[in-house]
């Protein structure tokens, strides 16, 4: 039999948790269910099409259409290429910067911390617009400068767009992750560092063998968030697409969804594709968590 105090405790817990569950249901579960519902229907018309439209039940055919569409599948390949460039550069760069700041070498520590973090304070859309200005031939001073040096490069071509998009994201996120890593480095016990010094380890050896392993959970978490964020890649390529449509309107999976919904008015296909992206992100984040957890075991 539950004591009155236990019952009261449970009631308080329910009360305190209810705002979370209320919001979670309203802004996460409800849209998910609505998308699942939408994904089962398709809009059909007949003849010339001027007699109106009707919504018909389509079963899982929207999912089949998304999966069999090369444009949708290619989007994931683009994400893979993007991750292969972006994650090592961004996480590696953030780690190196954090280690430099943490080492005895750094001068004007808080200035650099702020300066490197500053790009993250610029909203993503604005950042993308600024970068696209620098990428656009005829407008960009950078391209003019390169051209006067005899180098001609098209940042907006389909071949270079992965680099261009990754570059914007690196600029935006490196400082942010550096701050996280730097904070984690502050928590490394001084005894361990002192012991390393006594054992004769230099600065580089200490960084690689003591500091990095000790902040591994922070790095793993950053990688996890970055992977999930990368699957949802949208803002940067969308702005690049507006400057030059060479990359195509379905370059990343999220762009595919947007094109399906708002260019082609195919909401069923868009809903099915979004749920597939969500599913993929869930599976991938599960894999990343498992992988990093296994790695941390001795």
């Amino acid at each position, binding site marked *: 039999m539950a004591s009155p105090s236990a019952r009261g405790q449970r009631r308080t817990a329910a009360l305190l948790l209810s705002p979370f569950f209320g919001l979670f249901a309203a802004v996460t579960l409800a849209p998910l269910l609505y998308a699942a519902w939408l994904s089962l229907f398709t809009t059909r018309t007949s003849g010339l099409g001027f007699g109106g439209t009707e919504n018909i039940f389509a079963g899982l055919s929207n999912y089949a259409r998304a999966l069999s569409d090369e444009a949708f599948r290619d989007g994931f390949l683009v994400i893979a290429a993007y991750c292969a460039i972006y994650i090592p550069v961004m996480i590696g760069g953030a780690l190196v910067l954090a280690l430099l700041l943490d080492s005895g070498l750094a001068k004007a520590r808080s200035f650099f911390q702020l300066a490197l973090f500053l790009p993250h304070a610029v909203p993503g859309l604005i950042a993308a617009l600024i970068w696209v200005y620098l990428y656009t031939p005829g407008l960009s001073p950078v391209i003019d400068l390169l051209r006067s040096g005899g180098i001609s490069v098209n940042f907006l071509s389909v071949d270079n767009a992965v680099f261009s998009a990754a570059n914007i994201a690196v600029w935006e996120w490196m400082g942010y992750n550096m701050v996280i890593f730097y904070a984690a480095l502050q928590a490394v016990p001084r005894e361990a560092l002192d012991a390393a010094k006594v054992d004769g380890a230099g600065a580089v050896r200490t960084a690689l063998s003591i500091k990095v392993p000790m902040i591994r959970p922070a790095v793993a978490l950053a990688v996890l968030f970055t992977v999930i964020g990368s699957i949802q890649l949208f803002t940067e390529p969308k702005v690049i697409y507006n400057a030059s449509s*060479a990359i195509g309107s379905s370059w990343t999976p999220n762009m595919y969804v947007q094109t399906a919904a708002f260019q082609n008015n195919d909401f069923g296909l868009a809903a099915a594709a979004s749920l597939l992206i969500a599913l993929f992100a869930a599976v991938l984040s599960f894999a990343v968590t498992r992988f990093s957890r296994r790695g941390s075991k001795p």
Partner: protein
Amino acid sequence: MLRRTTAALAGSVTALALLATACGGTDQGASATAEKTGKVTFWSFVKGSDQVAAAFNRSHPGIEVTFETVPSGQEYYSKLTNAVKAGTAPDVAVVEYPQLPEFAAQGKIEDLSGSLGPLVKDRFPEAARQLVDLGGKTWAVPRDAAPLTLMYRKDFFTQHKIDVPTTWDAYRNMTERVKKADPAARGGVLYTDNPGLLSALAWQAGGQWFSTEKDAWKVTVDDGPSKKVAEFWGELARKDLVRSLGSLDPFWTSVQKGQTVAYVCASWCAGAQQATVPDQKGKWAVAPVPTWDGKPASAMYGGSSFVIPKGADNSGAAAEFIKWITTDPEGMKAWVSSGTSSLFPADPQLVPVTKAAFPTDYFGGQDVYAVGAASYDAIRQGWQWGPVMGTTNTAIVDQLPKVADGSVTLSGVLSTAQQATVAQMKQRGLQISAP
């Protein structure tokens, strides 16, 4: 013929204006006038919309039009579609001709056959009517026709003794001579983000992307004339005789810098040109668009109409507003006197009004409306826009930037668009007859 002589018309416009006011009083019974009051929200991106709304409010005390400016392009059409879905649609909205069939087919706009159908039948020539009368119903009221023209830098052409081309062969020569005269200058542009000019040029050459037979669509985006046009422009772009540029900032920057000294455009470009590049006043002139055989032929590049979206709160007053801004001389004057719009009225009776209201000192006093009028007369009959233009246009735009570097051919782009269009139409359940 689309219209009688301008001289005869000039006199009749005043009479018509009087007639319109007179009819306004007798046509509508007491109950109808009661409906034609109240608030009207109006979405538009075309130049002069704010002035025309303000002018309407001044002359119609019973109706209060609230103008809301919206972005142009695909984003706008998404916004309008979503607003209809969400039940927050405006009472009046602008829709360009290419997008109209898709809106009608999606059931996003009201059938105006009953309310404004007679007006459309009465006032507009076939060239404009065929774009708004679809499947036997009237879906919109045309505002402007956008007949093709050629814009060129008179000073540059005179200085380098270059003739204004009248055929496309001569146009190619012109681009070569322009580049020779000034290595930084080009005599044309292939837009990388705008399929409208390409489709207009295909239309002018006798292409027919869409047609209807009984209850089925015929889709031939890559027909012979269209491919001829695509090969011509693809070659110019590959040889760097015309610039491959985005149609907004990059294009206008090139004009500003004197790097674009001629371009194919439409009647509305005169206003856009003088509003965007005011400091090149007196240097530009307007010429008829070149043709394939030297005989006049034209098409529309752009042009807009007004619709009443489904779910509009006040369609009575909305219809009254649409009627005024498309067919009333005062309404037409309000569009053009802003100085940023050189629209060519789809209603030919109103041409003298716009001509009188549009300031032409930028073009050294040239009668730009005479060029427009000749071009309007020469528009090829029978063109239709397709029911999934969003898909067709996206398929073209996604490939256009790759034409200049030779990674795709422009006629290949049309074939891609053909396939994407047919696939999307099948998906929607539309009938397609074999081409």
